[in-house]
């Protein structure tokens, strides 16, 4: 008599195949054995989320609650900026986040200039928007005015 239950063999074989593919889906060369810097390091959303996450987390102690800010990409991309606005709402609670773009449509520039802080994800802007508070490879954080 087989030590295996005949009727359970089919689901077992199927689950073995699925488990093997699960193992193969792990990011062995993409940071499986490194501590992730953000929750999105090896995800499908890494292209849009990782750099923004890095900059916004560093902005947290620099931008006080209640302050207004805009987060934007450099070079500017309204589609990306729409996401950055949403990330800022999540990662910088209690601040007033002015979207650089919403649903892919750029906001009136005058509204952006009225914010106290500007967070730039990407390369350093050619025209400094204010006083540089922080520069990291993923972006820069600026304070407008004196």
């Amino acid at each position: 008599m087989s030590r295996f239950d005949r009727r359970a063999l089919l689901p077992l074989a199927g689950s073995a195949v699925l488990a093997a593919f699960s193992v193969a889906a792990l990011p062995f060369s993409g940071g499986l054995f490194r501590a992730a810097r953000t929750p999105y390091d090896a995800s499908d959303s890494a292209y849009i989320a990782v750099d923004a996450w890095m900059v916004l987390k560093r902005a947290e102690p620099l931008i006080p609650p209640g302050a207004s800010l805009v987060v934007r990409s450099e070079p500017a991309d309204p589609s990306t900026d729409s996401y950055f606005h949403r990330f800022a709402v999540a990662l910088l609670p209690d601040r007033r986040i002015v979207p650089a773009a919403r649903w892919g449509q750029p906001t009136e520039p005058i509204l952006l200039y009225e914010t106290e802080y500007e967070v730039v994800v990407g390369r350093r802007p050619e025209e400094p928007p204010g006083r540089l508070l922080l520069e990291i490879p993923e972006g820069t954080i600026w304070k407008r005015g004196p």
Partner: protein
Amino acid sequence: MRGGHVWLATFALFPLVGAPLLKHPVFHRFGLVSRVVLAGGVGMAIVSWTMTVFALAGVRWGPTLLLVSVALAFALRLALSGASERVPFPRGRGEGQGEGRPATTVAALAIIAVSLLTALAATIAARSTSLDLVLFWGPKAQQFAAARTIDATFLSAPYIDYMHIYYPPLVTNVFALGAMVAGRFPWGAATLTFPLFLAATAFALPGILRNGARRPAAYGTTALVVSALSLLGIHASVAGNAEPFLFFFETLALALLLTPFARTVAGQFLAGLLLAGAAGAKVEALPFVGAAVVLFFVVLPAARRSPGPTLVRLLGPAALSLVPWFAFGASRKLFYGYYSYGRFLEIHWEHFGSVLSGLGTAFWNAGYALPVLVPLVVLLLTRGKTRRAILPLGVAVLLAGFFTFTYLHSATDPKVWIGWSAARIFSPLTVLFALAAHTAAQGEDGVEESSG
């Protein structure tokens, strides 16, 4: 202890809340491990309902809500005080009919362990995190925790129209409860709900399926379900999203409905509470709940003899779970129901080809369609399926039809929409096919026949 650890530890509160109900002797048949997890599911549904009622009444969340939740669980237990139904249970006679073949169970446990560890590794490596976590689940939970209520001011703020403010409240409530205790919302820990709920499903499912089948079959089906959800979850990026909650509630509820225990008052009531958890977790659980209940009446003639009470037990908790939520939305002038992506019944047949190809691409991208195809192949090759298979198969067909119908409402080409949503919302199909195949291990009445 770090905030993330504290946040995760709060999930231990839910089995404590649900314990008064699941301690009822009628549930002893599930075994201790399964009962603890089921108590967690019931506790979560009760706590979320209490939080929503508190928010509706304008009462801030605090320790009182847990006391009220426990009191509710005791009240539910009282409602079952007379329950002592006897239904066939195969464990006793199963000895010597396959129970003595531990190799099957050991192999299944090994595969379950690999699948769970893989889901955990993928989550820790930030491979499977859903963008929805940072877009709306996390921000809402974080804000609700800070406000100690469902914050209507936040939900009506300008520029957050992307947050799906009408989405049902269970996930944000559960996330917010942990954030209140931990003092902050830990984004990384929130992603761990994927392996956590997958593990909870793996621990609870064998105890439920054992009510209608022998141990090897119960563990074999559990291995298939868990491995399929693990692969799909990794590829479809469900970590931090509501899908892990849905996997958990929908899988356990439907598995329960397939057992002979579902003939009893207690069984139907427990299934109803799990369906309420699903309905509270995500919008797309509603068609699942509706289809499951309708098809339960189709496959179980006994249920049709007293349709009213059965309907109340199965659907009552889900309806009750949503009443305070919609009352909250309406009273704060936030929302008056669920919104759709297009005009109802304005179907764009010109997108039919695009929908089909989009679905094909989405499934292929989610593990080469294997999470759906493998359980489907197992189902097709399994002999001896019973009439009960109509229940999971019917739900699968109705869900697939409903979601396709929904996509056809899009005025613009829905391919992008399908690309980021289809693999996740069609995910119950993996479980449904596996459970349909499992009916072959049960007799026509849901109890395994003696052939071995």
